[in-house]
């Protein structure tokens, strides 16, 4: 009977009448789950970062952004940079502030890993709460949560300070709250939903469309519930205003600083660099932009633009491969639309799930994003959310059937995890994850390459620079080059970087601003976007007639060579800065 209770949770209620059960007392289930998950993810992160030397450069730059706010030459909030949505870096800040106690928080970007682990553990707690709401018994909940927690994509991004971990947390949270509000209509859930959706948008740009679609769903649900259009308006505002305020803070700040609220899209966000060594384009993300960098789509030969059909196909392929369970669950949901009431909520749920992949298709089509597997990571939590929704809808009506569905979900999710793991080993499909997947098998540390591992090269380069910069003169460099340097430099203030408010003025008039050196990457590839290369196209070749070569080396940023030039004369540019 005990076995049957495990397998068929709905039988548990009957069993309790007949036999004494020892209640498993968990003082605070959520806290326990969080702690266990967090510790596990930290262990994985330690293994990846300290043993395998795997740290995605984008994760490292996010920590660098937080570092710049606190410890750069010009500490200020705007130093967070406006390429990435700012929330992950904000969360890194308190951890980076403790670098004095443990330097790897900054030097090896581990602050980002801790932040990601914390959010990933939070997601496990959320899913557990959702499953409890769906009426799933504890053991079955924990099994499903475990399956989620060990999904390879989830694990990798729980160990890397990218935006995926916090994004998934807010994504799951907002949709769970939406589902609960759809049922209970408790007003307090509306602002919570709005805040979570807004926060998701501050982690990933694509979540802007999620927030918008959620607003549409609130309107649709509210209208269906009756009460007139004024009530609909009120409830839409109750959801929308918190979301808008959160998002507007970011857009508004961009508008003030860059006179463009959509700077993330129009500015130097993500670029494509055709890599002959690989079959498909490689994405190289900038760390913190130079203001003058142009949009990726304006640079001929840099962006690979796909047709709409190709975009749909590629996104769909990613969706299928990243987590095939979504197909089964979507089919179940569509089936419910035909047969059951409550289809408005089901349609809304589908819209929420489709929103981000649909946006990805569009952005891929116009060349603003790359064909990167993790861009469709939302499919994985969405599959789990669909499972929760299905279980909830079966909860009271078909208890035995819902038990069977729960078991089926376990199998489907488990199988999908296996498929995810296999896919991550395919470099064509998972360019960013394949190296670490291989390293997990070989247990051999990775060498810096492509878009990971730059943090390893930083100390070496800084050592070389310090040998060259004997008089400790200020070195000006674009953050896209020296993001891996200032965090590991003994004195971060040695570098005058892009986020410093006098960067432009100092780049134009270095001597006036106390700058003695320019650090410039090789103009090929990503180095073409370096601000100094833009201002002085001949700087790399011959010092542009105002600088003298002091030294050179390899590995400033991702696969770059660098040169250090000493300023010997006026640059000839009359800019006075911002």
């Amino acid at each position, binding site marked *: 009977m005990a076995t049957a209770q495990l397998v068929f949770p709905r039988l548990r209620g009957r069993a309790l009448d007949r036999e004494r059960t020892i209640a498993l007392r968990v003082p605070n289930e959520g806290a326990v789950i969080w702690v266990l998950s967090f510790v596990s993810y930290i262990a994985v992160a330690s293994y990846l970062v300290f043993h395998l030397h795997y740290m995605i450069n984008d994760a490292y730059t996010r920590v660098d952004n937080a570092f710049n706010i606190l410890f750069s030459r010009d500490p200020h909030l705007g130093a967070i940079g406006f390429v990435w949505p700012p929330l992950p870096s904000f969360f890194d800040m308190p951890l980076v502030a403790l670098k004095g106690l443990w330097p790897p928080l900054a030097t090896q970007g581990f602050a980002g890993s801790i932040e990601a682990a914390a959010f990933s553990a939070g997601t496990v707690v959320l899913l557990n709460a959702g499953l409890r709401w769906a009426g799933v018994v504890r053991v079955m909940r924990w099994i499903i949560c475990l399956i989620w927690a060990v999904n390879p994509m989830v694990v990798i991004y729980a160990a890397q300070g990218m935006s995926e971990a916090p994004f998934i947390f807010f994504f799951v949270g907002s949709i769970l709250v939406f589902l609960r509000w759809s049922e209970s209509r408790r*007003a307090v859930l509306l602002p919570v939903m709005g805040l979570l959706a807004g926060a998701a948008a501050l982690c990933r740009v694509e979540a802007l469309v999620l927030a918008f679609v959620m607003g549409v769903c609130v309107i649709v649900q509210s209208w269906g519930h009756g009460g007139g259009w*004024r009530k609909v308006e009120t409830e839409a505002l*109750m959801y929308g205003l918190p979301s808008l305020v959160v998002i507007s803070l970011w857009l508004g700040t961009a508008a003030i600083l860059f006179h463009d609220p959509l700077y993330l899209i129009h500015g130097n966000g993500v670029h494509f660099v055709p890599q002959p060594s690989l079959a498909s384009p490689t994405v190289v993300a900038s760390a913190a932009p130079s203001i003058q960098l142009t949009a990726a789509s304006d640079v001929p030969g840099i962006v690979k633009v796909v047709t709409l059909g190709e975009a749909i196909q590629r996104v769909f392929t990613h969706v299928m491969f990243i987590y095939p369970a979504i197909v089964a669950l979507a089919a179940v949901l569509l089936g419910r639309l035909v047969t059951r009431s409550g289809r408005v909520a089901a349609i809304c749920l589908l819209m929420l799930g489709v929103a981000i992949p649909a946006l990805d298709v569009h952005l891929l089509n116009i060349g603003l994003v790359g064909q990167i597997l993790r861009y469709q990571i939302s499919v994985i939590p969405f599959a789990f959310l669909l499972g929760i929704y299905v279980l909830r809808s079966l909860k009271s009506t078909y208890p035995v059937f819902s038990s069977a569905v729960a078991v089926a979900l376990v199998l489907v999710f488990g199988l999908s995890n296996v498929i995810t793991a296999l896919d991550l080993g395919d470099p064509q499909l998972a360019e960013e994850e394949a190296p670490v997947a291989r390293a997990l098998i070989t247990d051999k540390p990775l060498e810096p390459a492509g878009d990971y591992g730059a943090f390893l090269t930083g100390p070496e380069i800084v050592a070389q620079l310090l040998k060259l910069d004997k008089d400790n003169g200020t070195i000006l460099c674009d953050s896209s080059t020296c993001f891996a340097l200032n965090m590991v430099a003994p004195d971060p203030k040695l570098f005058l970087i892009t986020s410093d408010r006098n960067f432009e003025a100092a780049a134009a008039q270095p001597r006036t601003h106390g700058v003695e050196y320019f650090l410039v990457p090789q103009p090929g590839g990503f180095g073409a976007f370096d601000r100094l290369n833009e201002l002085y196209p001949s700087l790399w070749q011959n010092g542009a007639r105002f600088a003298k070569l002091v030294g050179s080396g390899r590995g400033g940023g991702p696969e770059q060579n660098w040169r250090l030039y000493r300023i010997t004369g006026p640059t000839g540019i009359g800019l006075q800065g911002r």
Partner: protein
Amino acid sequence: MTGAEVPDHTPLGQLMLTRGLIDEAGLEAALELQAREHVLLGEAFVARGAPQEDVWKALATQWGLPRIDLSSHWVDEALANELDARQAIRHRILPLRRGAGRAVVAMADPQDARAFNYAEAKLRMPIEPIVVAPDSLRRRQETVYRHQLVQIACALLHAKTPEQSAHITLSRPQKKVLVVAPLIAVALIVLMRSTFFVALAGALVTAYAAVVLFRAYVTVIGARSQQLIKVSRPEIDELTDFPVYTLLLPLYREAGVLSQLISACRHLEYPASKLDIKLLLEEDDLETIDVVRQTALPPNFEVLIVPAEGPRTKPKACNYGLQFARGEYSVIFDAEDVPAPDQLKKALVIFRRRGRLVGCVQAQLNYYNPKQNMITKWFALEYMSWFDFFLPGLVRLGLPVPLGGSSNHFPTRLLRELGAWDPNNVTEDADVGMRLHRTGYETALVDSVTLEEANSDYINWMRQRSRWGKGYLISWLVLMRHPRTLFRDVGWRGTVAVQLTLGGTFGVSVLNLLVYLLTLLWLLAQLGFVQYLFPTGIYYIGMIELVFGNFLFLYLGLWCAHHRRAYDLTHAAVFSPLYWLMASVAMIKAGIQAVNKPTFWEKTVHGLFETTPH
């Protein structure tokens, strides 16, 4: 003087029938009322509409006592004033003259042994009663005891606890502080130079943050707790014993809402014979007096003319009326109020249920004209957040509660012991709430709404709001005369709450204007001095307050609209910052008036909304 001198043992009802004053049906109805509401038969006749004079004529006959028409009778005022006016009113007696070793005393109820004994004890001679109808007696008492009554109305609190009276705005130590503080500021400017202003900006930002956080915290607590006491219909129906309930209804230049007020009182679900309704009219308000005199008032209404002496304020009028209150409980309603019909019964249930620790039962206030225009919408939202969330939060946290200006129910005895209302304070409601808390009494919030008329005219609204701001400021100054005593009485939490509720409400409203102006200057022109005044730490705190603080309270308005299902008010909630700017201007005016006209009562005009709620 008229009436038999030999008692007539004929039952009163028979006498009334014989004299053709009532018919059989009327007698039966009066008997039934007597049995149901436990009143004297004479009162039952009056409650049924029989003229009081006629009833008292019959009573005089029954008692075998002479009766007089007091309106034209000479009264030895020196003799009369040997009695305490309040006691004379309470016992319904008035010494007329003395002679032959006896005092002739007019009495409404010569069979009242306590009244009899009191008169004899105070006059130190035997008394000879003469029957007088209560209304006639009261009118004459108002004239004879005018000086005492005015004195008590104006100075009772001052006499009891002068340090809690706003008869002066600033105490001597406070005046010293007012003189010394600028000198210290000048000295600091000399020493610190421009850093002083940065420090000042930091201090203001911090204080602003404290008030905003406090308001938000209390509001959230209030939203989550169930402090509004619900009284069920069965509980109301179980009431059998109804004490006399006094309603104090001050009117000043509000003849237009008189009929609505009378109607509202008629709709109260309370035995009419147990309602002691006092219409308080100002002596110089001839127009309203005229209209009242031409109106056929229900029998349970009494008109009191408040002498035009001393501060010309609503609390003084209420203090005057309180001296004539016969009720075990008293409540104030404003002229335009429409209380829920069962409110008195609900208050009674709460007083009985919660015991002696309850000093006040406060009903919720809201408006019957919320949609009239944008001002009324904002006002309605403000009241919703105040009564639905903020006050319940204060109650839940055990903090002092600034009462609303109307629908406060008190045990009459307690109100008198407290010194009643401060006639010099234009927010006497907030003040009495603070004093109740200091004395250890609780305020209970009842789930019952009194509808009022929201101000729909900007100038009118400005007057009202500036009066409230002035009152809050003065109340705060009064409480802060002896900070250590305040701390001892209400504890550190109560002391902090006083600063943040009274002082903070005024201060933040004034600061809002300055904050918005600085923000605008910064956004438009990026003026250097703004950047200087707000270095990084202060800037970020200020920016967080500006964005999140304003958003929070804007959202609160939205929440209130949803909570009350008043969806028509949603747009007003979104534009709330404009309302806050209006409040800022009003508070600045309040600050000025606190200096040059601290007791000036800016009258709020009512009757601007044409449709009455019934």
